[in-house]
């Protein structure tokens, strides 16, 4: 900011060619910062997620450089620390070698959380992206083709929404990869199977409203093709809704991931947050007073969900500008 004002108020008003970074800063980041100062919820949510990302990155760097203990496999130190028990008893000593302690099997809890958080987030992100994509296509097909296509989409969506998602997921999980539990990608795809009805419903109703708007009629009259209208006219206006649906789908998908893993249907030996909860619940960690095992994943999960919730509430304001005036 100071650089920018200096060049403007300088004695020689020569037009200094701004560097690309400078222009990005001035045209994108400054307005964004100004917007975030107004939209406190979004700012709060983004900063919570930012802190988590930062902690995970710092943790990864810390562990990568640390080459204690013989590491026979060529996996990163962090994966090694999170998955191979150093054969310690469950313990907690914040000033010792394991700042968050070790779990029932003697695994490093800090490493487990550091590696499990991005994994959980990644599964949710993939599932939500697929869900939104399928939902978007079906919504456009339904709203545009009308008639039978719309009826089928609507019937499918309406009849699938009341079925408890987690239960269908359990069925998919038990049949996809029995015995070992689902791998991360399988889990993401299984969740995606159920992630589309919600977005499809929201987007369809938006498209139906938008189709009647003046600018769409205008484009139709000037001979724009249906695809042209969809991509050039509707998509930009749909963007806030898409983003809001994505965050909602991401929240749902992460909840599903953690839920399915907690039931023991994921890969229970993989260092994910859900698998951690599985072991915590099924070894009765709290009854054994091993609270240090429970607290870190709970804090991370609560922070993740609260952060996403705040972003989603903030996006709501973008999607529904009428809300902006109200506190």
């Amino acid at each position, binding site marked *: 900011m100071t650089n920018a004002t200096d060049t403007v108020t300088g004695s020689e008003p020569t037009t200094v060619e701004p560097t690309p970074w400078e222009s990005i800063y001035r045209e994108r980041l400054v307005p964004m910062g100004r917007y975030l100062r107004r939209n406190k919820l979004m700012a709060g949510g983004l900063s919570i997620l930012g802190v988590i990302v930062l902690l995970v990155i710092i943790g990864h760097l810390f562990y990568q450089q640390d080459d204690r203990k013989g590491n026979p496999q060529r996996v990163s130190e962090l994966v090694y620390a999170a998955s191979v028990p150093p054969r310690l008893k469950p313990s907690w000593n914040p000033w010792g070698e394991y700042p968050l302690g070790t779990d029932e099997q003697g695994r490093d809890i800090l490493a487990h959380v550091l590696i499990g958080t991005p994994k959980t987030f990644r599964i949710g992100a993939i599932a939500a992206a697929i869900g939104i994509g399928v939902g978007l296509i079906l919504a456009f097909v339904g709203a545009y083709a009308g008639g039978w296509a719309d009826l089928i989409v609507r019937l499918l969506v309406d009849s699938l929404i*009341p079925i408890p998602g*987690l*239960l269908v997921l359990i*069925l998919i999980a038990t049949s996809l990869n029995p015995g070992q539990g689902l791998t991360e990608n399988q889990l993401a795809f299984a969740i995606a199977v159920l992630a589309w009805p919600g977005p499809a419903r929201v987007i369809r109703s938006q498209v139906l409203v938008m189709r009647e708007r003046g600018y769409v009629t205008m484009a139709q009259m000037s001979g724009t093709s249906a695809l042209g209208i969809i991509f050039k006219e509707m998509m930009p206006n749909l963007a806030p809704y898409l983003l809001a649906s994505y965050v909602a789908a991401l929240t749902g998908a992460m909840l599903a991931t953690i839920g399915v893993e907690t039931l023991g249907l994921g890969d229970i030996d993989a260092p994910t947050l859900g698998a951690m909860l599985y072991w915590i619940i099924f070894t009765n960690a*709290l009854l054994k007073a091993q609270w240090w095992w429970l607290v870190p994943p709970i804090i991370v999960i609560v922070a993740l969900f*609260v952060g996403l*919730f705040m972003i989603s509430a903030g996006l709501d304001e973008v999607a529904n500008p009428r809300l902006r005036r109200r506190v």
Partner: protein
Amino acid sequence: MPSKYIVGRVGMFFLTIFLASTLVFFLPRLSGRDPFREKLFEEAQRGGYLEDVDEIAAALNEKYGFDRPLWQQYVVYLSEIARFDLGRSQFTFSKTNNQLLAETIGWTIGLTFVSAIVAFLIGTGMGAIMEWRRQNTGLLAAMAPFLMMSAVPYFIFGLVLLTVFWFSWLQAFDWELFPPYGAYDPTVEEWPDWTDLGFLGSALWHATLPALSIVLVSLGGWAMGMRGMMVTTKGEDYMLQAEAKGLPDKVRFYKYAIRNSLLPQLTGLALQIGLIVSGVVLVEIVFTYPGVGGLLVQSIRNSDYPLIQGIVFVLAFCTAVTTLVLDMIYPLIDPRISYSGN
């Protein structure tokens, strides 16, 4: 109430049930596994003794009809479902699935309904009052934590409650504020004798934490939804007219504002039932509540397909019935509702 609406809605209900039961039938069979054989092998290996496993598995599969063509199994399955016969578990031989579910489903339904309705009523009421008394900023401040909580999954919040209200209390005061697991006093021998006040009390006491983890999480969402609806309703002409007529505050609040804002809340409840049921299953596991959650985990571990199918079907059925009932209630609450199906 136009019969077209009812027929359409009931048709939707049967479509949901049909889709659910079809999913329940085909999904587990996609794997092409033979759980009997696998289990027998497992047992045989544990005992270090292997003989006739294939024959026993084949005999069991024949008995359960798993050796027949898929379409025959499907027809038989559908006719059984229509009679509400959920078949037999593969590994719990002493009882039918119907019996196993009858023992557990009551706890689940009780927990779900009581906590969902309590949360809905309190949340909706709070939201309504919040908007009606705009000057009461204290209420808004009190809502903030509930809003944040509404982002957290039920069972995660259950773990938080367990840590705070059981573990911490036990550590700090050497005293159990709430029991950490179970649904009633374990010393009770005859259950469930609901007329016995002692038993009822212990059941309520045990249900407190599981129910709280659902209620506290759901409150915020209902309150915000209701508040949003009240904002719209307050701006309507009939509200102005009611005020101009000099109707008392109470009448305007209950008969005008709340009644007109309630419908979208009920629609929301109908849409959320599926999510709530999924959540309750996980909450039950956290608190070792004797509902279907525990049975489900056990059947997943055993790859007990008939039992998994039975549980999933029953839960989907209950969800669909609740949604149907809610949809039928709308017209009672709001006579203006249009039934054209759009």
